[in-house]
């Protein structure tokens, strides 16, 4: 009986895997991942979710599967640490709990716990270090000036409490490197060398830096340098050159420099016309130029639509950043008789305008398919 049952399950999984290969979409990936979770194959489920998220970076259902599995694994530890904090709070327990939330990707929760730890134990460096590291993760990924400024403040506070903290020196050096403050970066790396003389990669970096000539302290304040990084959407110093990259350093989410196959994108976007209710679609490059678009007969003029998409993107992105919610992923606007979706993928902006009978979830699927088939493939080609 058990064998028959196992065989049935295996056939079911095999069918779902075939479905993913034949018709990849956020829904087929999610169905497979969810089934694997139900069967207790959690590692496989995370693998499938990761693969799906690589193609469809904004697929909420896949992100939930991954979070569910991770949460399941960490729930016991979180509960225990929360109980410890109730009974006998220590700086270490605050830092450990914040670290668990960081691993789950709940940065807000992690920052809130680190802030509580810092408030409760102002003379302990661990909570400040956690705040600094989380903000650095965010700065590396999203290049938001506010994250850099808070990271720098928190890391400096760590060094005020313990000037021998190597991690804080290293992360401070990194943030200065990323905003182009060479003198400050090398000063902290020299401290790292004094504390850990065997750090070969740091010694190498310093030697290479010396060949570039003397590093003069800059007059403009750190906030302005970080602001310049945000405005340019590019780091002043190359993150890959920095020694000992941190674990959270998976690079900026913007795919700067990826070559685009404009004719293929135009052909693919022309296919949007096949969907009833789809009025406008546009793909803008990082400079805001139209790469591909589609406009139905009753649609907004193409240039006007591109302008509208860029304006909505900028307003939404600015609001999200200033509210400390990160950068824009997607904006959905619903009004009487019209819907607008604006999303950003790898530094490119996609906007669609649609009306009945097109439904919002169907429009979002179309956009995600376009992203996965056109932008991921284009990126792979350019990387090859």
């Amino acid at each position, binding site marked *: 009986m058990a064998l028959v049952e196992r065989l049935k399950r295996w056939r079911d999984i095999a069918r779902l895997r075939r479905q993913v290969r034949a018709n990849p979409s956020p829904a087929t990936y999610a169905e497979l991942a969810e089934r694997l979770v139900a069967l207790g194959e959690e590692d496989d489920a995370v693998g499938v979710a990761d693969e799906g998220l690589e193609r469809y970076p904004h697929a909420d259902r896949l992100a*939930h599967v991954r979070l569910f599995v991770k949460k399941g694994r960490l729930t016991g530890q979180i509960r225990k640490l929360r109980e410890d904090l109730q009974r006998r709070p220590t700086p270490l327990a605050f830092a450990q709990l914040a670290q668990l939330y960081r691993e789950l990707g709940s940065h807000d929760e992690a920052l*809130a716990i680190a802030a509580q730890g810092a408030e409760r134990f102002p003379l302990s460096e661990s909570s400040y270090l956690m705040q600094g590291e989380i903000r650095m993760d965010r700065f590396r990924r999203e290049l938001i000036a506010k994250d850099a400024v808070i990271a720098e403040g928190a890391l400096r506070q760590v060094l005020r409490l313990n000037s021998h903290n190597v991690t804080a020196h290293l992360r401070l050096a990194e943030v200065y490197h990323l905003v182009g403050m060479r003198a400050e970066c090398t000063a902290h790396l020299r401290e790292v060398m004094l504390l850990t003389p065997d750090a070969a990669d740091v010694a190498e970096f310093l030697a290479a830096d010396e060949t570039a000539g003397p590093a003069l302290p800059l007059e403009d304040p750190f906030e302005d340098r970080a602001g310049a990084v945000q405005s340019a959407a590019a780091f002043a110093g190359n993150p890959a050159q920095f020694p000992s990259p941190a674990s959270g350093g998976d690079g900026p*989410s913007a795919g700067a420099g990826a070559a685009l196959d404009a004719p293929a994108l135009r052909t693919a976007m022309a296919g949007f016309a096949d969907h009833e209710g789809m009025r406008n679609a546009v793909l803008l490059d990082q400079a805001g130029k139209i790469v591909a678009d589609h406009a139905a007969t009753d649609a907004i003029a193409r240039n006007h639509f591109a302008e509208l998409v860029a*304006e909505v993107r900028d*307003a939404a992105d600015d609001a999200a950043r200033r509210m400390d919610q990160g950068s824009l*992923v997607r904006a959905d606007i619903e009004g009487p008789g019209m819907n607008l979706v604006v999303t950003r993928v790898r530094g490119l902006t996609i906007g669609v305008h649609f009306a009945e009978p097109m439904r919002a979830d169907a429009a979002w699927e179309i956009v995600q398919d376009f992203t996965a088939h056109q932008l991921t493939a284009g990126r792979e080609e350019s990387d090859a």
Partner: protein
Amino acid sequence: MRRILKQLNEAVGVKGSLVLTKDGIVVASHLARQLEEDVVAAMAANAIRATRKSLERHGLSDFARFTLVASHGKMVFTDTGPTFLVVVMDRNVALGPVDIEIESAAMRIRNMGKIRV
């Protein structure tokens, strides 16, 4: 109105909510500690104003609802007549179940008719 917001904030993943007039004045708010009321209100009002202006300029009707998904949070701005309901949520929250709570709160705010500050 504060009671409505308090109830809304009990939904899983909601970090805070506030009601704004269309020119950005806060009528009522209930926000988590990490959210600054002034910043959230100013930025929400700015995003709403800028988006409405853009839609109008390009010949589109006003919006009833604006959902903003960012890398570390989600926000929903809902038209509630003379005001807007602004809800800030965790990034990982599934919008479906919270939507019911938001719509219910929005309807109750709309039904309050006029604003008493």
